[in-house]
């Protein structure tokens, strides 16, 4: 205590007139906040352990609990805000790098919220998706520059392998290890039912999940965890992870507490060892090296699978994308600075990288200027929160979107941002069997399918309003967007006009 003490961030408010001391909260809290006092017959709380995951609140049968933000904070100071002060105390206590989870929570601009979508009035008709066909199917992958004909004059299929999506959304990379077996199973089954793809992340593929291979993207990251020939052959596509929006410039972090049992076996590393991927791929120090890895992976899979290169959105992302497009990659995935993570150094998460909206617009524009936009597909992630974010991303130029945080929310995540502790009360970001079993994969799958079905309906409504009946004609259709609250420069980079223009 004393100088080391930091007053807890949250307070547990228990309505004693409602509490029946059933001890559900105690059993549900992996952090050990709640205890039962047999002498007094009442529940007690240690709010210093609370992460505000809302598990106890959600399961309390009498709605006796709420978690509120503590009002015991240092004296107000616009420059030295409470979080900043607390972080300094923590570092002075520990001497360590601060760790965080999930996406950047800072109040930096969300450009999606400054972009507005068009609708048809008078000069052309809106289309009613309840009464007319409305198409959301997309194909990801390189498109040939020139058609070819056989001797009979018929068009020859000279397409390289493509990914076919029933709607332009995929579940983004989350490794087995960072999230649980049941979370992975939910994602895999939902992707299969929806006709889209989920992504293994860098932790390998559990042997039980090979059956979902046709709807799986297998990832190869700098740590090469769990990468072997069968793994590469198992998925529909291979993703080389060069970077992640939440932590550009560094590799993955998985604390040893989560490397247990099957996770250790799937990753092919010892139990309890921290899995810290190297910052760069040590066989890729330049673009020509990337080309070699792209083709090595293609060779290893007989050119039957498209290769995705995933990069974090950083300052010169347009030039990087141009390089990747010429590297033989079929798809470029760009992850914006608000992208989620299971664990990242706080300073990096909150300060490195750029918004996905600007990165996407810059890349799409650059690839078109160079005439190579059709050589690759563009997939963007890093905080796609809703169907309207998807529509705006497609109109800016994306072929499809990656979502991860939204998918986890559907599974029950309450964004408490403590995944790195491995104590997820919702059974998602944990490897403790008693917690993992709280997530029922059957229900998880249904909720993911529901979410995507709802988004698909909303996408169709928005498309119809614009007089569009196929997602393809929204792609890069920036005239359908207008900006508000933006500078000339921001509009210029996004390639859109201001509202009213």
């Amino acid at each position: 205590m004393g100088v080391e003490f930091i007053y807890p961030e949250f307070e547990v408010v228990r309505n004693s007139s409602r509490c029946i001391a059933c001890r559900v909260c105690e059993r549900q809290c992996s952090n050990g906040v709640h205890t039962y006092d047999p002498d007094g017959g009442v529940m007690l709380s240690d709010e210093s352990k609370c992460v505000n995951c809302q598990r106890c609140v959600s399961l309390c049968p009498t709605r006796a609990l709420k978690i509120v933000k503590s009002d015991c904070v240092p004296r107000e100071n616009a420059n030295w805000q409470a979080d900043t002060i607390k972080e300094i105390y923590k570092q002075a206590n520990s001497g360590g790098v601060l760790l965080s989870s999930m996406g950047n929570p800072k109040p930096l601009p969300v450009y999606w919220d400054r972009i507005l979508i068009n609708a048809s009035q008078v000069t052309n008709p809106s289309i009613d998706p309840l009464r007319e066909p409305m198409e959301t199917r997309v194909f990801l992958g390189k498109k040939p520059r020139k058609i070819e004909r056989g001797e009979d004059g018929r068009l020859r299929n000279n397409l390289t392998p493509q990914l076919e999506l029933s709607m332009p959304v995929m579940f983004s990379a989350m490794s087995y290890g960072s999230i649980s077996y049941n979370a992975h199973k939910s994602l895999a089954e939902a992707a299969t039912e929806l006709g889209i793809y989920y992504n293994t992340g860098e932790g390998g593929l559990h042997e039980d999940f090979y059956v979902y291979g046709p709807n799986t993207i297998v990832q190869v990251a700098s740590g090469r965890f769990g990468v072997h020939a069968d793994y590469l052959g198992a998925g529909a596509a291979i993703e080389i992870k060069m970077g992640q929006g939440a932590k550009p410039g560094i590799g993955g972090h998985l604390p040893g507490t989560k490397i247990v049992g099957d996770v250790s076996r799937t990753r092919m590393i010892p139990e309890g060892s921290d899995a810290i991927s190297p910052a760069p791929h040590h066989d890729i120090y330049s673009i020509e090296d990337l080309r070699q890895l792209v083709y090595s992976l293609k060779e290893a899979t007989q050119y039957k699978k498209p290769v995705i290169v995933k990069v974090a959105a950083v300052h010169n992302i347009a030039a990087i994308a141009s390089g990747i497009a010429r590297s033989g990659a079929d798809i470029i995935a760009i992850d914006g600075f608000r992208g989620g993570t299971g664990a990242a150094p706080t300073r990096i998460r909150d300060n490195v990288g750029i918004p996905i909206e600007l990165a996407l617009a810059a890349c799409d524009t650059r690839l078109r200027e160079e005439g190579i936009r059709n050589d690759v597909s563009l997939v963007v992630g890093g905080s796609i929160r809703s169907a309207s974010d998807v529509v705006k991303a497609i109109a800016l130029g994306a072929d499809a979107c990656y979502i991860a945080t939204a998918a986890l929310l559907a599974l029950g995540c309450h964004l408490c941002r403590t995944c790195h502790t491995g104590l997820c009360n919702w059974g998602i970001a944990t490897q403790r069997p008693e917690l993992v079993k709280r997530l029922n994969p059957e229900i998880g799958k249904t909720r993911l399918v529901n979410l995507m079905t709802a988004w698909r309906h909303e996408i169709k409504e928005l498309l119809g309003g614009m007089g569009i009946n196929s997602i393809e004609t929204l792609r890069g259709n920036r005239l359908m967007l207008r900006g508000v609250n933006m500078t000339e420069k921001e509009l210029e980079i996004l390639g859109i006009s201001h509202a009213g223009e």
Partner: protein
Amino acid sequence: MKREGQTRIPSGCAVTAVISKSGERMSGGSIVESMIPMHDRSNGLGGGFAAYGIYPEHRDFYALHLFYDDEGCRRECEEYLRERFEIVDAETIPTRTMREITDEPLIWRYFVFPRRSALRSLQIDDREYIVRATMKINSTINGAYVFSCGKNMGVFKAVGYPEDVGRYYRLDEYEGYLWTAHGRYPTNTPGWWGGAHPFALLDYSVVHNGEISSYDANRRFIEMFGYKCNLQTDTEVITYIIDYLLRRQGLTLTETAAVIAAPFWDTISHRPEGERETLTYLRTVFSSLLVTGPFSIILGFEGGLMALNDRLKLRSMVVGEHGDRVYIASEEAAIRKMDPGAEDIWAPAGGEPVIVRVKEGRY
């Protein structure tokens, strides 16, 4: 007000076409008349015609039709042309002075052929050379605008009602085997002659009724291949798409129609195997050239035409026949005006191309 090219201008329209399958040449008088019953589909801010087979005496030369704002840009442009082309004829296009047509630019036509040495050094054919020169003039010589550049064909257009524009250009004095016509109902143009339709590139001319919702997706894709959408109109981008698919990719007309007005995936899944593969291939490879939103277009080209509706048929278009003549129009009234005896009037389905060709050797 901003004119075409400075802003995007949507417009509604009327379209008409007549073709003689035996290649018989018809005076332009009749198609001009056809626009009268559709008067209310235009608003006096643009009308025009494309005529094929009208310059048989210069059939081997490209006929460039140009608007000039003034003598200065004419001299500049002619200097550009002289350096790059053999010019066999240069003249003003004959017009009639009329109360209904005002603010005329200078209107010239040139019959030209690219200099052989230029073709050799650029390693391109004469058609590509014409396309590049047209793009160059229209985007760099201020006040000069090439609005027609095909062989043995020409576009005539102006600000005004189409029936007046036809009389202004004395189209009854021309004879062609194929005519298309357009009356325009733009919503916010100040009335610039270059913004009227048809829009043409080489021998492809397009008249279009509708406002496409895919415009910017199409534009941003096609501009990767050297096209510059200077006018920001639907017709312009559709013409470039057609040129790209037909001439540069070598697709057939039917394949081109299957890209622009692609069948729905559900429809494709019910087609026989070979056709299903072809349609899937075309939709996958050229997905950015799908055109959505309402349109009825008539594409004219040397020796024929193709009429096409958007896949939901959000714009009217009917076809009729009589003898060797085929008529296409936004409204049946226009066909009746040209030929009261026209038979078998029918409405093509959305996305169903109507292709009519003149007998080989007759044009």
